[in-house]
């Protein structure tokens, strides 16, 4: 029995305007999705060139979900995006060259080569760097919301988690505390139907992950994660609801992980037709079509956006490759913070 609400797809430009996005915004969303995918595609190439140490993870298929949610956040809101959520970093304004530098373990990456992949965040943009342990950032996101509640600020925290990670205790404790205290937090489940090689029915026994929200006293919504506008609309609703003091929402974005778990994984265990089915609902292509049909996106404008993104990424890549490797003598610095470190927008 499904308990959660199933969200409708978004139709007209008018509807989108009512939800708070004008045409300029929509093109920005499209651009962010392109950048997101472009970064990860170039990451693949870098990896094959041997320039990325360790492993390499992407969020192909999840661009709409990530960008859609991030677009619905206000500047002062904060979030804890995960390894499929590059689009969140991009939407919040992280410079692509820093991300390439991060991938390659360079000194100018957000973690200065200390961590890899999307294990990074710019706290000045309201993002907290993920840890590998899933979903350990959910209690942390709830803690941010708790701070907002204590200070009576009208800010919202957004915590991401995968459908696989929903099985862990951290997910439960975080949602329960948030529900009990009606904290201003929105939980976003990136349900890409696989946890590494594990299918959803071995991770949870409900129809939807969002069906769990009831168990914590708040609403659950399932949304098509390839429909960026629907994701945006539902996120905006949930965020404003949280901001208004009406507590958490669990939004489940349904997608398919369009690649292996990481670069080494060929995803042999995913049925071929599943990939085919979801490929026909590619989030970027889908939004592009919508923009052409509903927002008069023409060839020229599209070319401009596409080539702008290409240029941005090419320059970013060059700049990142110029970034030096970190100095080994710096290794032991900064295990402990100094009082000056507290001099950031959030800590003040």
């Amino acid at each position, binding site marked *: 029995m499904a308990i959660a609400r199933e969200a409708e797809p978004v139709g007209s430009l008018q509807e989108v305007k009512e939800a708070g996005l004008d045409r300029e915004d929509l093109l920005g969303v499209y651009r962010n999705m392109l950048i997101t995918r472009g970064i990860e595609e170039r990451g693949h190439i870098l990896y094959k060139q041997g320039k990325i140490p360790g492993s390499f993870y992407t969020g192909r298929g999840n661009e709409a979900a990530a960008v859609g949610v991030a677009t619905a956040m206000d500047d002062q809101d904060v979030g804890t995006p995960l390894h499929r959520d590059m689009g969140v970093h991009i939407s919040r304004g992280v410079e692509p060259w820093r991300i390439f530098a991060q991938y390659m373990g360079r000194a100018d990456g957000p973690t200065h080569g200390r961590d890899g992949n999307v294990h990074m965040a710019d706290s000045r943009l309201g993002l907290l760097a993920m840890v590998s342990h899933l979903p350990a950032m959910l209690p*942390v996101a709830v*803690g941010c919301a*708790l701070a907002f509640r204590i200070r009576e600020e009208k800010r919202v925290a957004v915590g991401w988690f995968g459908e696989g990670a929903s099985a862990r205790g951290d997910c439960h404790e975080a949602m329960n505390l948030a529900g009990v205290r009606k904290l201003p937090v929105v939980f976003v489940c990136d349900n890409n139907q696989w946890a590494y090689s594990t299918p959803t029915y071995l991770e949870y026994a409900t129809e939807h992950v969002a069906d769990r929200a009831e168990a914590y006293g708040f609403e659950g919504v399932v949304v098509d994660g390839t429909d960026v506008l629907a994701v945006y609309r539902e996120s905006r609703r949930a965020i404003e609801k949280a901001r208004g003091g009406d507590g958490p929402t669990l939004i489940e974005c349904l997608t398919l992980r369009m690649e292996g778990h990481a670069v080494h994984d060929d995803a042999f265990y995913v049925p071929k037709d599943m990939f085919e089915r979801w490929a026909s609902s590619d989030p970027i292509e889908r939004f592009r079509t919508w923009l052409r049909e509903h927002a008069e996106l023409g060839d020229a404008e599209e070319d401009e956006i596409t080539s702008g993104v290409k240029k941005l990424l090419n320059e970013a890549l060059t700049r990142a490759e110029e970034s030096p490797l970190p100095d080994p003598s710096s290794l032991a610095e900064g295990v*402990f913070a100094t009082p000056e470190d*507290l001099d950031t927008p959030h800590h003040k």
Partner: protein
Amino acid sequence: MAEKTYLQAISDGLRQEMRRDKRVFVIGEDVGVYGGAFKVTLGFQEEFGPWRVIDAPLSETAIVGGCTGAAIMGLRPVAEMQFSDFISCGWDQLVTVAAKQRWRAGTPVPMTVRLPSGGGFSGGPFHSQNPESSFAHIPGLKIVCPATPEDAKGLLVTAIEDPNPVLYFEHKHLYRRIKAEVPDDRYTTPFGQARIHREGDDVSVITWGAMVWTAAEAAQQLEDDGISVEIVDLRTLVPWDKKAVLESVSKTSKVLVLHEDTHTGGFGGEIAATIAEEVFEDLDAPVKRLTAPDTPVPFSPPLEKAFIPQVDDVASALRELAEY
């Protein structure tokens, strides 16, 4: 200045800090209406309201993780574990998120976790442990173990002020047993500076927490036999005052490392190894350790007495060293 118990010193220090700094809040199980299992926060909720003295659900992971988030957002959380034993349920959050966030991502996590620890009153295997050694091994966490009321207050204030996750182990067996003068005004006691609890020339004892008092009684015994014992109270394990320890050992050339936690892999090993490495030439005897045996903490009094190092155990270890 007034005489206060170790417990009152903690409570007063915390209250004072909450009055001074609106960013400080308390969260834990039963800390509100009930005032905490040991009544450290008694009356706090009335004074500071339900959003600065928060009764949490039975959720150590959410408490520790929640404090991490709130700290990053600029508050100064003070979490209470009902017993330090239950921090095992927050282990992952502490070692994975809080401890590594500054080094990895540049984000400081200024939070304090209060942990009522230690045995001595038949709390049994799950209400008596001293888990400080496990955490002292994790880079990024600071570890505080006050032995006196004055330090209990001063180190708590320093912990709250510190921009890092601090585990503050308050020994339950000192709560009401140990009383002393405590300054009324706010003050901080620096981390990483040991306190010479007692000066002496023949043997050094390196210890912390409740064992400081056990060592003191033993030292008293030995004084009658003409053996002069120096007691170094570490106060904090991370950072630990290597300099003070090595100086004391170089002076006496004999040393006993003493702790209430179990033996193998206990923090005493770290201290003993450092002494053996750094002042090897000054030593006139093996570096001796006296600790609890490698078992869980037992419930029944005769067993617990055999588990926790007693005054006589310390005294005979010291005699052995003195005679070496």
